[in-house]
């Protein structure tokens, strides 16, 4: 069946089988391979993308369910914020992960970034505990999570200083 949706700001129209998972559609049909498949049981969160601005697991959703909706993958993350807030072409979250060594093998990173984006859009200044609870749907087998928690908080600080949510919308009254 034909579906129309927006992916990373671009209108997309494709003919898909109802059984195609959103993650397979993104990777195979649109060649957006930044979104990873890390498990077969919807537990690891490596496939996390934003659906209408909120983190969801694209392995646990059908492409046809995304008809008419907005999807952002890690490839579209940096374009959510203006260029003057990007750091060397990276979204503040990506820059913070880079600077804090919040990854080793990097396989979970795209999913971590998208979940963290959702978390910071709701809570601009999360505590350690709030970051851990917010990222409980994303598994990392390398880092032990410490640098990830730190990176998310650093990105939160950068975004607060810029008066922006991680989705790029202006934020009143949180500028420090």
């Amino acid at each position: 069946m034909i579906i129309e949706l927006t992916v990373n700001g671009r209108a997309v129209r494709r003919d898909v089988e109802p059984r195609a998972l959103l993650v397979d559609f993104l990777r195979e049909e649109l060649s957006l391979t930044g979104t990873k498949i890390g498990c077969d049981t919807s537990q690891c969160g490596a496939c996390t993308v934003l659906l209408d601005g909120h983190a969801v697991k694209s392995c646990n959703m059908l492409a046809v369910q995304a008809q008419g909706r907005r999807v952002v993958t890690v490839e579209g993350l940096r374009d959510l914020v203006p260029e003057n807030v990007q750091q060397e072409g990276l979204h503040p979250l990506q820059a913070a992960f880079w600077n804090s060594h919040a990854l080793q093998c990097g396989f979970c990173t795209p999913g971590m970034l998208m979940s963290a984006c959702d978390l910071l859009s709701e809570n601009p200044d999360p505590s350690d505990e709030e970051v851990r609870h917010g990222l409980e749907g994303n598994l990392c087998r390398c880092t032990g999570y410490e640098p990830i928690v730190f990176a998310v908080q650093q990105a939160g600080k950068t975004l607060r200083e810029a008066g922006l949510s991680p989705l790029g919308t202006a934020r009143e009254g949180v500028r420090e």
Partner: protein
Amino acid sequence: MTPEEFGYVRPSSLAEAVAALAQPGAKLLAGGQSLLPLMRLRFAAPKTLVDLQDVAELRGIEARGEEVRIGAFTSHVDVAAGAPWQALREAAEQTGDRQVRRLGTIGGAVSHADPAGDLPAALLALGARVELVGPEGRRSLAIDEFFVGPLMTAAQENEVLEAVFVPAEGKGSGSAYRKLRQEASGFALVGVAARLRLDGAGRCVAAGIGVTGVGFTPYRARATEELLVGTAVSDVEVEKALGAIVQDIDVASDAYASAEYRAEMCQLFGRQAIAAAKAQARS
């Protein structure tokens, strides 16, 4: 793994959804957070999926007289943020993980009827009911008549669960949900929801206790409820009431927890849930 082939329809009203579900082999798709994993493992292979996301009648939380109606398609995130009763909000907040809570729905979680589901415990404690709509019309069912076995409910194959109804929170009421998580899966090894109503003198005039992860289905611990009513909910009285929390239950035993351990944890988490409900009821 990719699911087996199926057809897909997206009705825009409840009447259309009921009609679509009447087709042989059709199954409802809400958030898909339990159904799609089963289909990917090929434990389930419906012929047609009836996606409910456009059915407006299934959305939202609103007061209806003495009750609050929670549409079946209301997500765990929205229940955690906007439902009445602390126990219900806490159970929604402890279901799955952030991404699952965004797509997963209360109707889906109730219909999936996982014996370790969090929301069923809270709904049992609250004395909730569900409304089902089928080709023959609408019917109401108490939540404790709804769970009939592991992943089995009293809903007929041609019925759509339209909404969950919980009583409005009255004066002197309090509730809480406390859970021992299986660390890898996040499912409840033991989960206990408690609801209490206290009179002006601090005496318990109504109690509801819902237990999950322990029995064949989530259940209402009626003996414990009866032992609480009429008391001042003192430590000694709570202890005595909790002595009956697994009465007549075949307590589950598996690689994660023995029956003895689960029964013991029912006491501990039951005590915490009752204490939190009592503190709220007094405030």
